[in-house]
């Protein structure tokens, strides 16, 4: 089956022959307005055993480039020009049948989101075995044995049990290990890792990247690492290729690109990346804003239980969390998924009644509020959600979205409302031309500005920002963080900043609480916690921030 398409190095100079050589690649998509080119003139080399990072923001063409290499462009996509040489053989123009023979065996993929990248109705074992079956590697018994071997190799405990389990029975990190096992099963020459850890918690991210590194060294496999995170690229790659708008901005050895970026765009990326950025020039603790003394938020021994399956036994999501936030200050709640950080925020906003403990916001005891008083409490505290794509009603105009809170409270005349909406949009840096538009016509950063405007239109004292910048590209993230800082200075706002990203937290907050499995494991002024972490977990979190090793060449 594979005889006709055997990939062999063309010359004897094996060591220097690149595993992958992309030359002047151009890719386009057929859309409503005809054909649109999204990747222009991209050329790069990946040598054996090397890690090359393809860095860029959303829409930069990095994933499209990776998909073109493995021949899996979306149906409306087309490779328009250029060459893709795998071990010296140009595979552009190969039929799907020819490509099927090399996919999985010579070139493989570690996908972005482990939660959706495994078939939910097939067992883990069957999905690992599949790649061996497709390429006819051994008898049934041999394949079964190899599956267990692979699952063991990627660090899964109880591999025999895992092989019989279904994807939903495994955590995200475990699923990503399974996907890595599939990718390395046939010892391919090249692995394309498309944002392999973007959906994972930071400590899990570190372990997964370590595993990929380790296997790469063991098997001598080259890796094309697609990532939006310059910190990850800085830690893991030998060579960095920076993409913007489908064009290469610059490329070079990691150390060189980081130390002496040649393009403006790379310089901007480096400046905006929180993990690579320097700590803020003005320490927050001496910030002049906190002059109106007094606490905006007081949380004492917050406990939140949830019933499971209607039975008596409960799950304790938050277990004895206490902190205070001064007026005009920013407090961050940091933790990984399942740490209870969002639950804490929801209790403070009054979305659920705590099992035990006391919460004071602006002197009001939140736990005693009912219906109407709870509704009026929303004028004091507002929430900005994580995903600006889902938190705005797609059928409302921007004006209607920002106006709506006003209709719920102040019976202002129409002209006053219009003036107020206009003023607040101006405040968050949006032009008045967006008023009549709908959310889909706005970029992610603009949408998050609308969400902030909607929260601010009621003149609240406290803003709860639930992962409010996590879904944004780094440059946009930097702009939104700057906007939040400026608004705080001007309006004396108090922020409760919920985040999993310690680098961002260090940049924006004055004080921090670190949550782990519902318990508060650390707390205090940000620099104190970073300099002298009080728990092993906090230390692990800090060391898992990508971008601190900077250059880690082997």
């Amino acid at each position: 089956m594979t005889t006709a398409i055997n990939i062999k190095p063309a010359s004897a100079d094996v060591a220097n022959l690149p595993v992958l050589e992309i030359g002047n690649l151009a890719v386009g998509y057929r859309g409503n307005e005809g054909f649109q080119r999204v990747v222009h003139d991209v050329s790069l080399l990946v040598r054996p055993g090397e890690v090359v990072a393809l860095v860029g923001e959303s829409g930069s063409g990095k994933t499209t480039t990776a998909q073109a290499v493995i021949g899996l462009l979306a149906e409306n996509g087309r490779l328009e020009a250029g060459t893709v040489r795998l071990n010296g053989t140009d595979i552009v123009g190969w039929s799907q049948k020819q490509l099927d023979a090399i996919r999985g065996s010579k070139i493989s993929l570690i996908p972005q989101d482990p939660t959706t990248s495994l078939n939910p109705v097939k067992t883990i074992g069957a999905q690992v075995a599949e790649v061996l079956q497709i390429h006819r590697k051994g008898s049934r018994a041999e394949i079964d044995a190899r599956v267990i071997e692979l699952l063991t190799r990627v660090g899964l405990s109880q591999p025999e049990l895992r092989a019989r389990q279904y994807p939903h029975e495994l955590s995200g990190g475990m699923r990503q290990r399974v996907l890595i096992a599939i990718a390395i099963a046939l010892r391919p020459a090249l692995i394309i890792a498309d944002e392999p850890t973007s959906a994972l918690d930071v400590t899990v991210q570190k372990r997964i990247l370590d595993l990929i590194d380790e296997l790469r060294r063991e098997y001598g496999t080259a890796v094309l690492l697609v990532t939006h995170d310059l910190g990850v690229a800085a830690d893991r790659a030998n060579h960095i290729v920076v993409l913007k708008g489908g064009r290469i901005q610059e490329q070079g050895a990691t150390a060189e690109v980081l130390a002496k970026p040649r393009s403006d765009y790379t310089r901007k990326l480096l400046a905006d990346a929180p993990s690579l950025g320097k700590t803020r020039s003005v320490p927050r603790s001496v910030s002049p804003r906190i002059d109106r003394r007094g606490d905006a938020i007081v949380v004492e021994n917050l406990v939140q239980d949830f019933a499971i399956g209607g039975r008596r036994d409960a799950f304790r999501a938050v277990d004895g969390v206490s902190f205070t936030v001064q007026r005009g200050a920013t407090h961050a709640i940091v933790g990984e998924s399942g740490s209870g950080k969002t639950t804490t925020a929801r209790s403070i906003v009054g979305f659920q009644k705590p099992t035990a403990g006391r919460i004071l916001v602006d002197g009001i005891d939140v736990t005693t509020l009912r219906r109407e008083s709870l509704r009026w409490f929303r004028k004091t505290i507002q929430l900005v959600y994580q995903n600006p794509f889902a938190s705005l009603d797609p059928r409302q105009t921007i004006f209607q979205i920002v106006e709506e809170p006003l209709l719920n409270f102040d019976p202002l005349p129409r002209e006053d409302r219009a003036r107020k909406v206009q003023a607040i949009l101006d405040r968050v840096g949006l032009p008045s031309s967006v008023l009549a538009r709908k959310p889909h016509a706005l970029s992610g950063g603009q949408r998050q500005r609308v969400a902030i405007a909607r929260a601010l239109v009621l003149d609240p004292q406290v803003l709860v920002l639930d992962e409010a910048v996590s879904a944004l590209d780094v440059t946009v993230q930097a702009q939104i963080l700057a906007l939040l800082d400026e608004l705080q200075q001007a309006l004396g706002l108090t922020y409760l900043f919920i985040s999993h990203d310690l680098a961002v937290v260090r940049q924006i907050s004055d004080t921090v609480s670190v949550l782990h499995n519902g318990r508060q494991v650390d707390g205090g002024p940000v620099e104190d916690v970073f300099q002298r972490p009080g728990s092993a977990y906090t230390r692990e979190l800090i060391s898992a921030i990508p971008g601190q090793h900077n250059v880690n060449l082997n």
Partner: protein
Amino acid sequence: MSRYVIGRIGQAALVLWAAFTVSFILLQALPGDAILIKFLNFELGLGPEQIADIRASYGADSPLLVQYVHTVISFLTGNYGYSIHAGVPVGDLILANLPQTLWLATLGFLLSLVLAITLAALSALSPFSWLRSLIQSIPALFISTPVFWLGILLIQVFSFQLKLIPIINPGPWQALILPVLTLAVPISAPLAQILMRNIDHVLTEPFVAVARAKGASHRWVLWKHVAKNAVLPTLTIAGILFGELLAGAVVTEAVFGLNGLGGLTQRSVNDQDIAVLQAIVVFSAAAFVLINLTVDLLYPVFDPRLRVKQGAVA
């Protein structure tokens, strides 16, 4: 038995009771009276007193609530009353008409499955996008075809023009061919549409890209990954479509002159034979509820995500 199963059975019983009660009220609210239709006939020469006696013997004049309670109790004890028109127990009438409809419904449903799966498979395997759009537009055509029109058209073509199927005294199987086809076409349409949409959706899932990256061919992916994931959500719809099947049977049996439950329903409506109609409603509702209950209880067998968790979830 788990709480889930008990809960679902409870719900099914509730639906059955609601169907019974609503149909009871509606049938009582109908103008007209089966007893008057049959006995207020001058040839029978019955006087007003005699008719009143007959009415009393059927319990037709007692208060509604008493009639309701009486009917509930007799239904629970397996006594479905007497047909006023035919003068035989309703249970016997239904049993006599059941086999014909059962064959019609089962074969119609199977054929609609075959049609739907064939269309979906053709669309998924078609190498050209224009061909796929063409195939995907067929269900819209099917769904907008009225059953009575299709029935008459099929008779015209196959019986009168081509003379393939005799219209008078056909064999038991020959008699079923056209009705089954008539019934299956409109039922297959929503099934095919949902199946096609599911297949297109599943094809965009990341796990399909992972399978392709393993070196799996398009056919392999369709068969080993897409098929099961696309069929799962269709099960619920298939259960609900069974209701359509019963409704379709009434028209189909009328068009083709078959003696099934559909035909019986039609005649009973004409005669305002309330006892028969009440029993048919409850019987159909019971069949509908039973099929949907079976679908719900079978789901965990096909979908591992709905099974009770076992083992470590570390």
